[in-house]
């Protein structure tokens, strides 16, 4: 191939200052102890993220590789740390509400509810029955929306992108229902201390019923489409096996623990809110691999539909319009003390710990984030698998980094 003579060859040489910049970057990298191999010198250390399509958010993972096998995988978190717990100390109890939306942005309703339960425990506010039913309905819908995101991305991670689109069709329907309820599609701020922000709009129950009648069929379809797929099965089965004893010892909750056969669901075992009035099953996995974790999520969605159906029936017997506790003050100033309350979110046991010093602002707020505890399992689960399986293992833990980093 002949090179045209009018090209300025000088301009194509990399300038010296660029080389210097690259060299100094390399020095910065060498100072980060994580980037030097811990095992064999031949091992290659690869930095994934913090911004990478397969990390499900802003997560950096430092991976030490022997060939293609993961020897060490270290999640480096905190890239989305906004100091929500510190910000809460500077706001009144009601002003903290929008912050809770931004914890788990795939399941805002849960953080809303967990925070409200802690505030209600601290202040002794009693929530009207209708509001409790509405909370259960929106939170079970939220579970479906959140799991659809997780199952869909499991499909995307394993190369089954069609499943992703099918899952998102269902998620979109739930988000439309939420938009009708509170006007927002992502950060709802709907569950409030003492009740919910507004009553259900007219005709909403029928739309919700239409959805829960159609959704289980869609789940059977998705099950065949994704988990019946030979490639997806091969990518998910026996990958990232978690035994039940390790799951409990490391504080795993939710579908991650239940995928390993840990029979623990706060909705049934803690019987908070109006959950004891509903009849539902808790799906469990057997082997504790990525396949079981993803399938537990799928069948939980069907159980959520059962709960919503019963809740809608019982909601019809409640007095309409009574959605807030009576005599709710504009500024809450609970008596000094502390309270902790937790709910079963889509990711596991989500708790809020509040300390009051008697003023209108929380003295301390701590969020017990299930995604944070579940993510701590990643180094163990990924070890010995290939780099491409690391992505699947991370996806099966379903971390949402708004909640991990807070």
């Amino acid at each position, binding site marked *: 191939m002949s090179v045209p003579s009018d090209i300025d060859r000088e301009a194509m040489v990399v300038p010296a200052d660029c080389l210097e910049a690259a060299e100094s970057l390399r020095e910065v990298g060498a100072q980060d102890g994580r980037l030097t191999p811990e095992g064999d010198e031949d091992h290659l250390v690869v930095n994934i993220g913090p911004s990478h399509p397969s990390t499900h958010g802003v997560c950096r993972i430092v991976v030490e590789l022997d060939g293609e096998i993961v020897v060490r995988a270290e999640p480096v978190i905190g890239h989305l*740390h906004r100091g929500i717990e510190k910000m809460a100390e500077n706001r009144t109890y009601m002003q903290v509400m929008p912050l809770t939306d931004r914890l788990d942005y795939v399941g805002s309703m849960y953080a809303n509810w967990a925070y409200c339960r802690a505030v209600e425990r601290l202040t002794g506010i009693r929530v009207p029955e209708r509001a409790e039913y509405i909370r259960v309905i929106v939170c079970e819908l939220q579970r479906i929306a959140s799991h659809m995101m997780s199952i869909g991305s499991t499909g995307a991670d394993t190369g089954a992108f069609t499943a992703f689109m099918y899952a998102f069709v269902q998620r979109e329907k739930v988000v439309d229902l939420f938009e009708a309820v509170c006007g927002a599609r992502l950060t709802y701020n709907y569950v409030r201390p003492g009740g919910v922000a507004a009553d259900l709009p007219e005709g909403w129950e029928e739309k919700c019923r239409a959805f829960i009648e159609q959704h289980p069929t869609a789940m059977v379809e998705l099950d065949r489409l994704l988990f019946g797929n030979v490639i997806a099965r091969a990518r998910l089965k026996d990958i990232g096996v978690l035994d039940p004893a390790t799951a409990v*010892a490391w504080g795993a909750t939710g579908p991650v623990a239940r995928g390993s056969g840990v029979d623990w669901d706060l909705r049934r075992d803690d019987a908070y809110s109006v959950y004891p009035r509903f009849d539902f099953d808790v799906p469990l996995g057997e082997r504790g691999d990525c396949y079981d974790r993803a399938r537990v999520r799928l069948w939980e969605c069907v159980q959520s539909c059962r709960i919503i159906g019963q809740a809608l029936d019982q909601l019809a017997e409640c007095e309409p319009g009574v959605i807030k506790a009576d005599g709710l003050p504009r*500024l809450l100033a609970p008596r000094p003390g502390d309270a*902790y309350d937790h709910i079963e979110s889509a990711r596991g046991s989500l708790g809020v710990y509040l300390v009051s010093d008697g003023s*209108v602002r929380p003295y301390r707020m701590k969020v017990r984030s299930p995604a944070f*505890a579940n993510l701590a399992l990643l180094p163990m689960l990924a070890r010995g698998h290939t780099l491409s399986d690391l992505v699947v293992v991370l996806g099966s833990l379903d971390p949402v980094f708004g909640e991990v980093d807070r």
Partner: protein
Amino acid sequence: MNITELREYLCTQYPDLCPLFSIEFGDGVLTVPSDRLGEAMCSLKDLGFDFLGMLTAVDYGDEFELVYRLRAREMHLGLFLKTRVPREAPHIRSVTALWPSANWHEREVFDLFGIVFDGHPDLRRILLPDDWVGHPLRKDYEDPNIIRRPDYL
């Protein structure tokens, strides 16, 4: 089992822990001196508390209070274990040997409060960058970006 039954059970099994147990807002609270933390943890684990949900700290000026949330899954019971360490020497024994789940939580408390957990296998900052100065969740932490919101009262 409910919380009063737990109190009776605890008192028969471990009489020395009995005076330290109280019930607040319907939750059991066991307040122990910091040097007896490990012993109390082991006793509670024997009683059936098999899950450490979270641990955190609260800044009370001269002292930090460490709050451990334990859970007995069989008994469907939650329990707080609280202990205090002085601000001048914020040291406490790590419970990672007993509860592997404490690993990341202790790193978080170290990061945001500066409390040192003796015996922790890998005590580094977790949420903030490695070169961050100070511990933001302490009440005396100062940053020009933190602007006190006005009082509405």
